[in-house]
Each structure stands twice: as structure tokens, then as C-alpha cells.
């Protein structure tokens, strides 16, 4: 990252050219935002400075065990949160992530530690992840991505996994594994993981998917900014309605009937998503064992939803039959509170005429 004077000036020229072009042509203006090199350099220098501060020196030992590396990562994130002028609720811009990576490079260079592909993320609350590994899937890819995030805790709940998948999770340092010998059903694992987790932000991730950390970071930032539940915005990925899967249709219908048409097919039924600790306790850690019921309770409890453009892959539809039953239960629960037509009463029909006495 250190450049000669001539190289710096050439970089400045290049970036200058790009900016003038993007002003003149509308086609170019739509292209990806190019971060000025000066800002990246400033972040790098700030990273070096932060690493040289006395606080970091005293807290960080000289060893290079996984535990020390983890401590370094958390210290890095703490310093980055302080020096990035981050305020809760300002969202997560692409430039913030890039500058964070420069900051990280400076920080590690100053400490003479090996470079990492971490994703420094300004967060004021403490975050944890619950990884659901159902039916013996290998959670390695997912755990690799999660290791890049500033998580204080990673809990893998294995649902009927064999020794192979257990070993794969065991390879990752700093991961708590809950291994239950029997099959308990994937959604129960959510409940168990949430109960053991004591952080302010709880991210639920699918062990079999390996979602990119950049996408998951959006969920963490949304909760940090004051949302109760952060969902992955699937609507764009689903495309035209006629190509939607059945479960998405049912999810969208339930959201509409409960008075949240703006949520479309986004729901806590699908992974990944994140909860704040307070909202999770309000709904109840036991209740999230039936995800559709949790969605209904969250909407009924007027929790604040954030829909994040995470750009993550397609949800899996393997437990669709189970999920349909959950939606029946959830709608039934809502009907118990609000009546059988929820907030959509029938004021026009004279049902006595047709001989129907069912309502």
C-alpha cells in the first residue's frame, strides 16, 4: 500500500479522469463506484496508528494462537468502529467495507501479523451467529465466511450429524458445537442455539449454504441500526411471480393477510436472518422452533423489520411440507386473536339467505 510519489500522482490522475467521465456519460455513471485511493490510504494509515496505540499493545499478547488471532480481530473491529465515525442507523455502504479492509491491512502490518481476509464492520452491539447444520451437511464453507465477521460467538447446532460433519466443524477455531445424537428437526435447533447465545445480535445462518460474509454483514448492520429483525430481501431474486416456489407464495400470502404486504415473501422462515436479543426474548426463544409462528408473532408484536439487499443465494425448499403445516398453525394462531377473517371482515354477504349458518 505504500507507493512512490510518481505512482501516487498517476493514481490521482486516473481517479480524476474517471470522475470527469462519469459526469459526462450517463452510461458510465451507473457503473460501480470507484473509491478514491486517498481514502483507502487514509484508512490504511489509521489502521497502523490504531495498532500502535498503547491499549492494543497491552491487550494483545505476543502469541499467534487462534485465540490470539481472534482477540486481534475483535480489537481491530473495535478500533475500526471508533475511527470510522460510524453512527447506528447509517447503513452499510460498499465504500465502508473497502475502507475497513484497508484499515485491517494497516492494523495487521503494524502488528506484524499475517494478512487476513476479514471484513471489518463497524458495530456498536455485540454479535453472535447460530449455524444450523441439519442432516449431516458440511458447515465448513459457512463457518469460513462467518470467521470473517466480527462475531463474539459462533454456535453450530448439529441436528443428527455424523462424525464427518462434526469433524468438519471442529476444524474451525472458536466455534461452539452442540451435537445432539438424534434428529430433532432443523427448526428446533434454532431455538436451542438462541437459548445458549447471550449476545445482542443473533445471526441465524444455514450451514449448508456458505453465504458470503458481505451479505451477512448487511443483516448485522441493520440490527445494529435499531431494527428488531433483519431479513434477506429475496423478492428481487425470485423474479416474476409465476416462477416463484410454492413456499414463497404461502409466505407472501401470510405476510399480506397479517397486514404486511411490504414484506412480500421475506420471512424468518428462510435463512439467513438476524434478530435483536430483545425482540427474540419478546417472541420467546421457544417460539422460534416453529418459524412461521415466530413470523406471525413478530408481525403481531409490531416488531421493526429490515429487508436487506444481501444478494444471497436461493433458499432451499427441502422442508416445504413441514413449513406448510407451520403456516397453517401460524394463521390459526392469528385467527384466535383477531377472528377467522383477521382484519378483512365480510360486511356485504347476507349468509342467512343461502342457508349457511357457519358464521
Amino acid at each position, binding site marked *: 500500500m505504500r507507493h512512490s510519489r510518481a505512482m501516487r500522482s498517476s493514481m490521482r490522475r486516473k481517479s480524476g479522469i474517471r470522475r470527469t467521465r462519469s459526469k459526462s456519460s450517463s452510461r458510465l455513471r451507473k457503473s460501480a463506484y470507484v473509491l478514491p485511493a486517498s481514502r483507502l490510504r487514509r484508512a490504511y494509515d489509521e489502521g497502523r496508528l490504531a495498532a500502535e496505540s498503547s491499549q492494543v499493545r497491552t491487550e494483545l499478547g505476543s502469541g499467534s494462537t487462534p485465540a490470539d488471532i481472534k482477540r486481534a480481530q475483535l480489537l481491530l473491529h473495535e478500533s475500526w468502529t471508533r475511527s470510522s465515525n460510524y453512527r447506528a442507523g447509517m447503513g452499510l455502504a460498499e465504500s465502508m467495507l473497502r475502507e475497513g479492509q484497508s484499515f485491517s491491512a494497516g492494523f495487521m502490518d503494524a502488528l506484524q501479523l499475517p494478512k487476513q481476509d476479514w471484513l471489518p464492520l463497524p458495530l456498536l452491539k455485540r454479535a453472535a451467529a447460530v449455524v444450523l447444520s441439519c442432516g449431516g451437511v458440511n458447515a465448513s464453507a459457512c463457518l469460513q465466511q462467518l470467521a470473517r465477521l466480527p462475531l463474539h460467538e459462533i454456535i453450530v447446532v448439529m441436528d443428527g450429524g455424523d462424525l464427518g460433519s462434526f469433524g468438519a466443524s471442529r476444524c474451525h477455531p472458536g466455534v461452539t458445537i452442540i451435537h445432539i445424537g438424534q434428529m430433532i428437526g432443523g427448526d428446533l435447533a434454532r431455538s436451542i442455539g438462541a437459548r445458549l447465545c447471550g449476545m445482542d445480535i443473533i445471526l441465524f445462518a444455514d450451514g449448508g449454504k456458505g453465504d458470503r460474509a458481505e451479505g451477512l454483514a448487511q443483516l448485522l448492520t441493520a440490527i445494529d441500526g435499531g431494527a428488531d429483525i433483519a431479513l434477506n430481501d429475496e423478492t428481487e431474486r*425470485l423474479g*416474476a411471480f*409465476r416462477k416463484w416456489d410454492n413456499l414463497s407464495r404461502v409466505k407472501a*400470502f401470510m405476510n399480506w393477510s397479517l397486514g404486511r404486504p411490504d414484506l412480500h415473501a421475506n420471512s424468518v422462515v428462510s435463512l439467513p436472518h438476524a434478530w435483536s436479543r430483545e425482540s427474540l426474548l419478546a417472541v420467546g426463544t421457544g417460539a422460534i*422452533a416453529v418459524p412461521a409462528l415466530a413470523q406471525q408473532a413478530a408481525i403481531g408484536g409490531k416488531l421493526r423489520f429490515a429487508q436487506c439487499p444481501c444478494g444471497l443465494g436461493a433458499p432451499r425448499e427441502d422442508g416445504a411440507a413441514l413449513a406448510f403445516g407451520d403456516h397453517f*398453525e401460524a*394463521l390459526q394462531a392469528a385467527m384466535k386473536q383477531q377472528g377467522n377473517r383477521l382484519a378483512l371482515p365480510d360486511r356485504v354477504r347476507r349468509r342467512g339467505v343461502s342457508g349457511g349458518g357457519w358464521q
Partner: protein
Amino acid sequence: MIKPSGGRRTALHAHSRRSGAAGSSRRRPVSSSRLGAASRKATRQAREQRQWRQRYSYRNYLRRQGPKRTDSRAPNGNGEEQPFLAESTARQKAEAPYLSVIIPVMNERRTIGRVVREAARIHPNVEVIVVANGSRDGSATIAARSGARVIEYAEPLGHDVGRSVGAAAAKGQVLLFIDGDMVIPAGSLKPFIHAIQQEGVDVALNDYSGPTNKPVVHSVVLAKHALNAMLGRPDLNGTSMTAVPHAISRHALETIGAESLSVPPLAHARAVQLGLKVRAVKHVNVGKLNLPRTQRERTNPLETLIVGDHLEAIEWLTQHNGIRGGYGDTKRNREMVR
């Protein structure tokens, strides 16, 4: 309309073919309210032409000659040429009808006459039941004059309640439900009857799922798709007993009950759940034929009513099949997290 094969090749047949071709333009539905001034003028001219033709066509001349002459045209009653309406209603009194066409009507003077006439052309042994409720524009009179049996209520019964009333009064083995505000040609309605008659279908639905080639669809379209998915019949897509035209067999009517037809999604859920043979038979684009009703939508949106109906259907499913709607919960041991 007229099949060229299998008919009696007579001079009379040639007559009927000519007049049939003349009559075909009359049956084309025209929704003038959506068109501009120029098209309205064209529509008016077409109507005048049609009336002229009706008044002076050879077929109508023959009709005016009385029943004897018409009888000789179709002595068996099963020829391709449908018998004249007045005569067919006279014959219906003698024997029980095979097909009952049920048309709920409320202030649909513009179209009801044509709708009744089209309905009468579907089958030789047909009764057309018009349930006029809250009509103040003379729809009932027009329907009666067109040959329908009219059940009249002074007050509006509410959306789709007319279907229950009509179904309870129907005598046919097959019941076809259409609306009084859109003229669907008899040729498009015949496949629904045919599916029940020949293929053993109990509920023959319109294969119309609404506009779905966009990311955010209308809530009613969403509700229909979701209900079919929850019923375990995603192959039905967005077809439903909510949409006309659809036909049901008498067996289906007895199974689901006439009263449930007032809440069509409920009837639909019952039909699928109680093991009836439900199938989407033919595509009739009713979205295009349906008139926009801005005033009604402003004061009393149909959207919330129909989505609420779907919730009622789901409630019935949970009562009938248990709280999970018949889906199992075998894998989960919930006691572990209590």
C-alpha cells in the same frame, strides 16, 4: 357453432349455416367503456348493423313463422342447430334439465340478455337461472324475457350469495356458474360441461390464473396461488372457484353443500379436500372481460373480501384436518425447547 361433419346435408341445413355465420358477429363481446370516442362510434355502428340483421335476417323470418316451422328444422332436438329459445323452454317443463346455468345479477341490464341467450345455446336440455338481487334497472325483466327462470330479491344479497341461491334451486345434473356482466360465447362454455359429462371431472375450473408475469401480483391472485399450494395442488396454479366460468357436477354440489358456494374459496378448498376431481379445463380470459368498477372499488374493495374468504377456507381446513392442515410434525420434538 355448426360442425360441418356429421350433419344432415339438406337444404335446411344450408340455411342454418348461412344464418349461423351471420349471427356470429353478434356474439362478440364489446366493452365500449374502455375504448375511445372513435371506437365507440364504430361500436354503435356495429350494433345498429346487428339490429338490422336481426330484424331482417332469414333465420329470424323463419322464427317469426311459429313453432311448427322451427320444429321441422330440427326434428330430433339434437341436431347442430339449437332450437329456438321459447320452444326449448316449453320442452323443459316436461323433463328435468341436464344443465343448470346459474347467473347472479345485480344491475347488469347492458349484458344480461345476451348472457342468457348464450347460456341457452350450450346444451339442448338447459335451464337458465338468474338470481337477480338488488337490481333496479330492469335486469330481471330482461332476463325473464330472454327465457331465464328468475329468482328475485329486492335487496342485494352480497357477493356470490346468488350462486348458493341458484344452486339450491337448480335441478340439472351439471351446474354452470357464470356472471351477468360478461358475455362469454357458448362455444367457450361447452368444454366445461364436456369435461364433467365425458371425462368424469367433478369441478371444471377456468384455467385462468390472473396476470402473474411480474414480481408483485394482485393480492387475490396471490391468495389463490397460496391456497392451492397449501391444499397440495400447486398444479392448479391460480385457478379457483372464485373465477367464472366454472361447472360442477351434482355429486360435487351434494358433497360441498350449496351454502358454501357463497364463499367460493371455501367451496374450492372443500372440493379439493373432500376428494373431488378438480381440474382446470379451459382458459377464458375473464380479466379482460371484466369491467373496471372504479366506484365500487373505492367504497368497498373486493380485494379484502376475497382474501378474507381465503382465510375462511384455511380456517375450515384447520378444523377439518387438524391445526396443521393435514401436514405432519413428526420430526420435531417440541418438548425439548419448552
